[in-house]
């Protein structure tokens, strides 16, 4: 068997068999699914706490708030504010609502309590009073205008507009697309790449340091070339990362399927979202339904086969190329130091472009055509992350090819440089290494 394959195999198996890997791989999707389930549960759950609120009505409005569901309003006639305040304790009122005399002019009311009132109670009180006053005003206007069907006529003027985004394909066909999806997808993918490069780049670095500090390195490089060892490690760790990623996708999918089958029969993700957004905006329910429908169409239109393939292809390419580029640098850093605490001075120039790329990515998501987007997605150190943000919006082919070409070229160059540093660094024990020293190593010939 080829030696590099033997190394890849060891690097892969020794990591995959670790307890921490198994734990992280299996627990993360469960944790994420748990958080989602909790959030959905919270959204769907009604507030069932029974509350009684005392009302001091000084205005001329007649019962502007009415008991509803779990909230009861008790009107306190002929009670001073001081007495009512005491009732918070004696009668166990949740809060005290004081409707002032001039509510029509001041348009404000006061809610007293010892504890901070919940958002539901606050908005319930507000909307009840608002509706009450609006109804009064409206009927007054209708009466003045002498037009009994004015309300219906006004209602008919409501016209929600949905903007469908349609892209021209390269072959002239038109495609429906969703800006929201493009943004979300792009950003999610670039973030995954960022995480992946950092997590697994550091693993490569640790692996190199481990070999150095265990003093096994010289034994190994008397059997294989340092370059083979370095590449074997980089590829092995990449496969660990891909395995983990794939497991997460599969496990989360399985958990969502199983979870929804058990807990919410007949309910899929889309209808949950629909249900929750409609319940938040009850007054415009009908109109939102239409908008939702349009969005669903957009989403479905966005996901045609070629779009998916271009995104998936781009993701895999930039995912791997970006990782390879950075992990070679991480390996070089690992070779130059004796232990992890010494890595800091060399980590900065590696992590800086990575973090920068993430921030550029955020800006690019808003404007995927600007010059920042262009340069960010062409320069190899930031391109794996920034380009991924742009791909869902569509990128001119020449830019894509230029970016990919530069990335591959710089990967080869960086690996060559890193291998030089690595080759010398792994044999340097107990020496505090500076940038100047590393520069010297680069000029050694073998």
């Amino acid at each position: 068997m080829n030696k590099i394959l033997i190394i890849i195999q060891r690097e892969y198996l020794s990591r995959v068999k670790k307890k921490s890997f198994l734990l992280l791989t299996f627990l993360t999707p469960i944790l994420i699914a748990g958080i989602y389930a909790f959030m959905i549960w919270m959204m769907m759950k009604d507030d069932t706490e029974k509350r009684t609120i005392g009302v001091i009505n000084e205005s001329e409005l007649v019962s502007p708030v009415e008991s509803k569901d779990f909230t009861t309003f008790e009107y306190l006639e002929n009670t001073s504010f001081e007495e009512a305040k005491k009732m918070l304790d004696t009668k166990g009122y949740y809060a005290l609502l004081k409707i002032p005399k001039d509510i029509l002019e001041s348009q404000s009311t006061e809610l007293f309590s010892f504890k901070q009132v919940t958002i539901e109670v606050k908005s319930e009180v507000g909307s009840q009073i608002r509706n009450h006053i609006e109804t009064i005003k409206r009927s007054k206007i209708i009466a003045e205008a002498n037009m009994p069907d004015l309300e219906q006529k006004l209602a008919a003027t409501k016209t929600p507009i949905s903007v469908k985004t349609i892209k021209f394909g390269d072959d002239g066909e038109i495609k429906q697309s969703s800006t929201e999806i493009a943004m979300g997808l792009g950003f999610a993918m670039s973030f995954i790449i960022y995480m992946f490069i950092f997590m697994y780049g550091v693993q490569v670095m640790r692996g190199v340091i481990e070999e150095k500090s265990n003093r096994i390195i010289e034994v190994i490089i008397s059997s294989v070339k340092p370059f083979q060892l370095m590449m074997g490690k980089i590829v092995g760790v990449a496969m660990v990362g891909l395995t983990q990623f794939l497991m997460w996708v599969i496990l989360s999918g399985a958990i969502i399927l199983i979870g929804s089958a058990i807990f919410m029969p007949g309910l899929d993700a889309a209808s949950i979202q629909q249900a929750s957004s409609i319940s938040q905006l009850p007054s415009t329910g009908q109109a939102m339904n239409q908008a939702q429908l349009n969005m669903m169409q957009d989403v479905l239109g966005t996901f045609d086969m070629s779009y998916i393939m271009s995104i998936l292809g781009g993701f895999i390419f930039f995912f791997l190329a970006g990782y390879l580029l950075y992990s070679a640098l991480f390996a070089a850093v690992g070779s130059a130091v004796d232990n992890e605490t010494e890595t800091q001075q060399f980590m900065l120039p590696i992590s800086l472009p990575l973090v920068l790329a993430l921030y550029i990515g955020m800006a690019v998501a808003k404007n995927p055509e600007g010059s920042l987007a262009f340069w960010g997605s062409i320069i190899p150190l930031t391109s794996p992350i920034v380009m991924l943000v742009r791909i869902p919006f569509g990128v001119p082919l020449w830019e894509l090819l230029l970016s990919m070409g530069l990335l591959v070229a710089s990967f080869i160059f960086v690996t060559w440089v890193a291998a030089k540093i690595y080759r010398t660094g792994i044999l340097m024990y107990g020496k505090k290494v500076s940038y100047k020293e590393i520069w010297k190593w680069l000029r050694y010939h073998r």
Partner: protein
Amino acid sequence: MAFFEAKNIVKQYAGHTALKGVSISVSEGSIFGLLGPNGAGKTTLIRIINQITGPDSGEVFFNGEPLKPEHVHHIGYLPEERGLYKKMKVGEQSIYLAQLKGMSKQDATTKLQAWFKKFDILEWWDKKVEELSKGMAQKIQFITTILHEPKLLIFDEPFSGFDPINANLLKKEILELRNRGCTIIFSTHNMGSVEELCDHIALIHKSEKILDGSFEDIKKEYRTNTYNISFIGELEKIKANISHDIEILEHKSNKEFESLKLKLNNETGANELLSQLLPHVKIVSFNEIIPSMNDIFIRVVNEKNLSLDFE
């Protein structure tokens, strides 16, 4: 016939020369000692032999062929800086290292188990290295060095870090390997630790070879004609009866006997000295003082007017 040869090896690092045209020739089935103080360039030469680094100029021949990558399969190397993966199981790790030397998994497993049985350490197979003591790890290290039955074995500072028991075990195994036809190179600054094992010796000092020859020839050449004699009797009697050209270098006495360190000149032989002494004292022991490699090294450095300060 030379099994391994290095000719005129030059190796420079930025700002300093590690080897200035060093040549060595190691004959098949012999033990070659590469001796010299720390920083002399031994490890650099050994790394060149192992193709960890390459020479700037000079040629290296392995079994008559110019050194090439495939030769690593026939070389076993125990570096000065050595260790194992702490988190890996002993058996797995040994197989891995053997595979990197070009062995198949089955072959490695069979041979490893035979060696483990020989050293009576089979029960360590599934233990992690971090659970082993240092001495145990050293045994594993030795086995993995020789498992692929290399024709050339290189030990850099072989006995440093080994406890006396394991060091003896190691010596015994190395001699056995030599008897089976292995060629062995020792590299060490601790010259005393290997001299009795070596057939041939090269001394390296400050990137240059300053002495090269068979162990016996060197010892013969650097004989000092000094002898140690222990006896029971009176010192004055000896002084009165030995030839005038015999120099007494040192005198010690303890409860039981007296000892003298004598330097003979060219005319008087050991037999003659003994015959002069026998009638007067009772001789307990008599032996020639053979200079150690350390002494020889210092002498050579002085003779050649080289400076002795080690970097």
